């Protein structure tokens, strides 16, 4: 359970959002729900921190947004990965894997 992005490993929230958007574009609530589902309830983010992250990612050019109608025919802002965002996600995923593997090796060594 983390209330603020600061409680997550720095930069992790951004990566998780990018990962969530990798399959399809999604609106804010959808992203929140998906994150909660995928993490089996470990990550529950409030609207404030989530939207700060959206703003940050959008300004960095990693995601873009568009107003669309939802399945319940409500207007919502949909976020989608940009080309740059996809690249970043790939890089970060690879980097994350390497780090996790390295940490695992260190922990097993002792």
């Amino acid at each position, binding site marked *: 359970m983390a209330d603020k992005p600061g409680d997550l490993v720095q930069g992790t929230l951004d990566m998780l959002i990018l990962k969530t958007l990798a399959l399809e574009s999604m*609106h*804010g*609530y959808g992203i*929140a*729900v998906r994150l909660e589902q995928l993490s089996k309830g470990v990550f529950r983010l*409030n*609207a*404030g*921190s989530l*939207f*700060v992250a959206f*703003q*940050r990612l*959008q*300004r960095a050019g990693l995601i873009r947004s568009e107003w669309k109608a939802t399945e*319940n025919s*409500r*207007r*919502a*802002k949909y976020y989608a990965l940009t080309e740059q965002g996809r690249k970043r996600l790939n890089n970060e995923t690879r980097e994350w894997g390497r780090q996790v593997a390295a940490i695992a090796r260190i922990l097993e060594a002792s």
Partner: protein
Amino acid sequence: MASGLRSLFRKEQVSQELDEELSGFLEMAAEEKMKQGMSRKDALRAVRLEEGTVEVAKEVVRSAGWEFFLETYWQDLRFAARMLRKNPGFTAVAVLTLAVGIGANTAIFSVVYAVLLRPLPYQNPGQLVTMFESNLQKGIKEAGCSYVDFTAWQEQNRTFSFIAGEAFHALTFTGRGEPSELATVVVTPQMFSILQTQALLGRTFSPEDGVRGAAPVVILSETLWLSRFGSDPKIIGSAITLDQRSFTIIGIMPAGFRVPFFTKQDIWIPLAQDPLFSGWIAQPPSPHWLPVIGRLKQGVSLAQAQADMDSVSSNLAKEFPAEDTGWTIRLTPLQQELVGDVRSALLVLLGAVGLVLLIGCANIANLLLARATSRAREMALRQALGAERGRIVRQLLTESAVLGLLGAIAGILLAFWCVHAITPFLPSGLAQFGAVRLDGWVLGFALALSLVSSLGFGLAPALLSGDAHLEANLREGAARSGEGGRRSRARNFLAASELALALVVVVAAGLLLRSFIILTSVNPGFNVEHILKARISLPRFQYSTPQQWTAFASELLDRIQAQPGLKDSANAAPLPLADGSINLPFSIADSPPLPPGTPNTADYVAVSPNYFRVMGIPLLHGRTFNSDDSPSGRRVALINETLAQFYFPNQNPLGKRLVFGFPPNTNVSREIVGVVGDVRDISLHQAPGPMMYVPFAQEPFWGADVVVKSALPPSSVVSSIRQAAWSIDKNLPLTDIASMPDVLESSVAQPRFRTWLIGLFGVLAALLAAAGIFGVISYSVSCRTQEIGIRVALGASSQTIRSMVLREGLKIAGAGLGAGSIAALGLVRFLKSQLFGVGAADPLTFFGAAALLVIVALAACYIPARRATRVDPMVALRHE
């Protein structure tokens, strides 16, 4: 970035979008919960509990962007402006105080910058050094170089790319309208290679122009070119007449170009063309008269150059023991030499005006503290509503910064005016550093000053604002709330510091004022009343022989004296205080040589017989000159009292002989026929040294000052002198016309200037400090209204109340003045070099300054004290 800008400029739309997005988010979350069976109301409530309200979420999102900082800063600024507008009295007082402080500082700094900091207007000015000779054995601290030595230096030095000599003359310019004198700087050609300034038109001197026998050439200043030749570009190559001799114009130098040292410069000619040069100057033993400037080679340090010149001078002493024994060479960076003793005067002024600003800042800090107290409730409310302490401090500092900026704008306007106003009063010696103006550096200084001051006066109130006891302030009445001990202590401390600082400035002003009064009441040794002076210089190519000079001078004096009311006229060269001095070595005939180390020079003046009567210089022994002391007569001299006492103690000097003379006749034996009173000839603050006088007829000059004592109006005296001169030769200009009282006045122009300025700063400091203590005591009285009311109700007389309030003021004043005296005692040593006839720790000045400030402080406290006595006990008790 782009979206940051977008949200900055299209705030409404962005905010709406965020609003919609967030409320959509919350709606969806609520719908989810309703699917699980909650009622809509419960679902919305649950969502709100989980997520916070839309507003909070929005604030979180917005405060994460960089534009948020700007936006809130903008809010702070607008709020600050609103607060300042709401209190026009406070704002006006604070801005005015700052404007005066910043304006005065900026004006003084502009002078400091122009004189001390701005690089000299030459290429690589750091390489320029002055080279003077000194001979401590003979008691000569600083003399020019002899021409013979100069040529030897040129050949033997290894550390200078060029060295050059310079001198000043006034040449008579004729052939174009009225004859006039042109300020002429005489240089060796290398001077232009040293200064590396290009000609505006034509060329500068080449080495060939400096060879003896070369064709006479002249370079004009742009100013002269414009005023006398209408900027005619075809002027190059044509000829003008100087001292009745034809010179070819080869170049025009841009306006503002100057050879160091001389204030007024119209034209430049090579030294070889100087009418004096052909004569005695170039032959040994040549006098030490030529100031020399050199440019160091790339990468050579001053110490290396000094070592080089030391070896040059010791070589010369071996080679020419008769002329060069005892002479050493002293190198000084040019800027340092030019600035001279002005430096300490300027720094003292800057210090004083800085203190005035500091007092002003303390004043504003006090006003802000008082305001902070009455705003304590506002601050407490803000804190209660969730404002962080940092935010409040930032907002208060913003208010200070706005004040500071307003003050800076007004101050810069004031400084513009001040610089205009003080420029005419700047001592003329400063003119050679170029114009004093408000350029980028000076404006930068003003802005930095305003920033530092607003931090200075804003910080204490801002920091003290944070510790307000929240609930106490919310509960208490607005007027008295927040009046904690810390704040009132801070206020008293500030008021006391203001008085302490003011005392430092007032003491400095007092010391300089006393010095100035003593200086101007010094008896120069001669009368100045009703005496007028004017100079006539004879063109030396036309009047080339001493016989002509003598004949002209006696003819001129005869014609002047023949006119009614002008009987008392004489001439002198040089005239004391007006012309500087000529210092010559002498020896006493038929007496053992003076012990080594004894100075053997005296100031030299050639005068006509009437001189002592006209100037009111008393004859103490023997006789003055008379018409028998003619060119064919016996050589005679007069000495002053100092010379008589120092060299002829307990002897009768009359009949003794002195050997001296103006070059080239340096070894003339003259009989002392009289002793006259001492005269201060160099400056009023320099005690008279030994002086010797010779009859003008026996030792004439080509130029001399005519002095006339007359009760007639000055203009008619001047026109009579002019008529007399023109009746002999219509091509003679009359120059440097002045009354002797004016000469005396202008000889103290520099000390007067700085005394006035620092006096003004002293008054400002005292007034600001008075305002400070007035503010504190008034505030304290208004806070104690109730207490005073009770005292009155219990029977305290208005006398008691008044003295109670005054005592409070005196306590602050006492603390401030005590601390101030200690500070002043420590600081006055920086003034020492500028004092005359008064010690730096002069008790009278210290006591007087302290007494003055006590009176000022008491006067400032008297108004609130009176108000305290008028407190109506009934009203006071019902108060609150």
